[in-house]
């Protein structure tokens, strides 16, 4: 057991609480035992802590003035600055004060600040709706532009920008691994990607390890919901463009969006909320998807797609457009 305990203070902004609910699904060890084993404890969490009302406000005030030290500020949910800059779309109960004011003050005391979930990182649905009705923003981003509540130049006590655990919701492993990395040896800027996401989950694409890979290789595409084929060509899948390890780090046991039969909607990327097309439909120009796989020049993609389509085995072609296997992989006769 490490000597020093890493203390985590958690606040919920304008969000759905789903990142906390997802976090509670951590496996195999129960969340609190897992974190305690790594020397991490919650100072307070709105959904889980004992302190309520006056006791909670006293605790938060002590964290703000430095008399109650903590290390990590985790914020879950967008920062709501409206209406008219008043912050009245979210006041911290009992305090009469805008939640984002508390976040600003507490961020100044934290060694590390974690934006848990895409709302917190980039601003959420409101920030991606014309007129931004809630005047929402992320901790350090307005959608994909640095800024947000804390400003582009913000650095936490440890000298880092906000660590963006983007995802809608966050995967429990992304939070736990990041906290444990901080407890073990801290984190350097080199271990974050260009958007502040830890590489420990964001150096992969959702495409990596996709169970539909054979369909992708042959461009054997699903045509309607529940089809087994690749979801990229018709049904809106952005797994080849989305940074996250969802196909390698399963959700809820063995799940992922692709395994659930529906498209990756790029929920770790800024602006995923307003893709400019229907979520479950791939936008195309002259029959070619406009969103191409990361790092792939368009001409190559077109050439490769044409070639692989012409080489698609019958089994793959037929299975792609049904909801269960109709043609099994061949078995060599006479094998023992």
């Amino acid at each position: 057991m490490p000597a020093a305990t890493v203390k985590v203070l958690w606040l919920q902004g304008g969000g759905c609480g789903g990142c906390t609910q997802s976090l509670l699904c951590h496996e195999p060890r129960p969340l609190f035992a897992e974190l305690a084993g790594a020397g991490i404890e919650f100072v307070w969490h709105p959904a889980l802590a004992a302190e309520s009302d006056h006791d909670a406000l006293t605790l938060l005030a002590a964290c703000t003035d430095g008399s109650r030290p903590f290390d990590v500020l985790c914020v879950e949910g967008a920062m709501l600055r409206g209406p008219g800059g008043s912050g009245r779309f979210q006041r911290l109960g009992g305090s009469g004060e805008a939640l984002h004011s508390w976040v600003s003050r507490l961020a100044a005391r934290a060694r590390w600040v974690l934006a848990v979930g895409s709302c917190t990182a980039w601003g959420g649905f409101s920030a991606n709706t014309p007129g931004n009705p809630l005047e929402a923003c992320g901790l350090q981003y307005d959608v994909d532009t640095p800024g947000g509540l804390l400003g582009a130049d913000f650095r936490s006590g440890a000298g880092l920008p906000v660590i963006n655990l983007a995802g809608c919701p966050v995967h429990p492993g992304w939070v736990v691994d990041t906290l444990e990395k901080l407890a073990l040896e801290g984190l350097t800027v080199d271990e974050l990607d260009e958007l502040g996401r830890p590489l420990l989950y964001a150096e992969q694409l959702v495409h990596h390890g996709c169970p539909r890979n054979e369909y992708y290789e042959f461009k054997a595409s699903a045509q309607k919901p529940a089809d087994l084929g690749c979801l990229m060509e018709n049904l809106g899948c952005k797994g080849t463009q989305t940074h996250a390890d969802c196909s390698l780090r399963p959700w809820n046991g063995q799940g992922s969006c692709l395994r659930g039969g529906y498209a990756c909607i790029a929920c770790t990327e800024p602006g995923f909320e307003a893709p400019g097309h229907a979520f479950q439909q791939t936008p195309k120009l002259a029959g070619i998807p406009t969103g191409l796989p990361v790092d792939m020049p368009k001409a190559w993609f077109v050439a490769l797609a044409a070639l692989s389509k012409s080489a698609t085995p019958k089994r793959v072609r037929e299975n792609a457009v049904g909801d269960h296997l109709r043609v099994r992989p061949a078995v060599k006769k006479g094998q023992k």
Partner: protein
Amino acid sequence: MSRRIVLGPFNRVEGDLELSLDLAADGRSVAAARVNSPLFRGFEQILVGRQPLDALAIVPRICGICSVAQSAAAAQALAQLAGVTPPPNGQLAQRLVQATENLADHLTHFYLFFMPDFAHPAYAGRPWHAAVAGRFRAGSGSAVGEVLPARARFFHLTGFLAGRWPHTLALQPGGSTKAMSSAERIRLLAILREFRAFLEQTLFADTLEAVLALPDADALQAWAAGRAGDLPLFLRAAADLGLERVGSAYERYLSCGAYELLPAGIRQPGAAGTFTVDRLETQKISEDIRHAWLTGPDALPPAQGETLVDADKADAYTWCKAPRYADQPAETGALARQLLAGQPLLCDLVARHGASVTARVVARLLELALIVPQMEDWLRAIVPGEAFCLPVELPDSGEACGLVEAARGSLGHWLSVRRGHLERYQIIAPTTWNFSPRDRHDQPGPLEHALVGLPAGPEAPPTVQHVVRSFDPCMVCTVH
């Protein structure tokens, strides 16, 4: 002049909550309560102008704990708009995902949100306090380390059936995007057996069937006496504190019906201790905004509803609208569902003392005992190889509504589409009913009514906390 106290941030609820309590002259009890939802989410504006099927990606994100229920309501409304009925496999798969969320929510509520209040030092010295505190103290009670793995393992059902939880796109108007293979069906049955074992060993210390067979309140207390298990432990504490007599609201219960098993309806007080049960007529539902920071006509049916902000409105004190049934406040949730289904034990508990902390908690946990065996049946009824999802074509214009039961009660989505885009999207969530503010007739919402007369002030035990949490509020849904 009465003294007003403000309780907030009111934690261990989903989302943001603040209570304002006017104390009676003696300063020891609640004379009047106002429930404030201090967070506004704006989803009804965010949905307008989107393509109708985009609602399936947007509405789950209203709520991280009722995410699937939101999906199901949207999928149902869109199915109605398209005039499509999912095939049997698709209906069963949807129902399984919904039930998983609802039951997991009941477990989360009981173990993580509700029970830690009984570890409060105010109860030190009660015969059950040491046992309860050791088991349920927030974050460190021994039960936490048992319920979290059981809950996580149970959610593997959603990993298989919906890709993940929360926030799935698997529920579609035509059914489910995930067609279950026969191998997966076997593993899902194994997950259900594992969950049943947790319930029977840890929560009830008895079989689900035996729990369901308890006929009345006396049998329940006799069953709880000396029994291991977390529900019996709660029941002994609750009996000592008299919580079967605390927390009644209006005795008007509303349910949309669930799983083709629990009926829709409205149960209301009749003459002298009797009650009536009537068909649910959705056209009698309206939302009143007199005391919300919203502008527009005082009350509108949801199909014509508006959500326009006015943060400076006089006499307003919450972002929550006030849904009313025929102009009357109503309570929704597991207790309402079970009363409308005529569940004998809960009918008896309510016949004696009305709705109460005890009745609401027992109703939720009884649903675990009732629905898990149903889920086993639904899984067995799935036919691998047959269709799970039908293609859907939406009309260019039209109106529809989806009504489902979330863990916390009735959830409705009312949408209208013009020229291929959402023109209006109105949502009434369960806690919007239960935690509604006063309306234009100055009738308090159900929680506001239930809190009147309870002990309050610096010396008071956490009775107010028990009653508030007995509704299992979900504030992020409330203020969608």
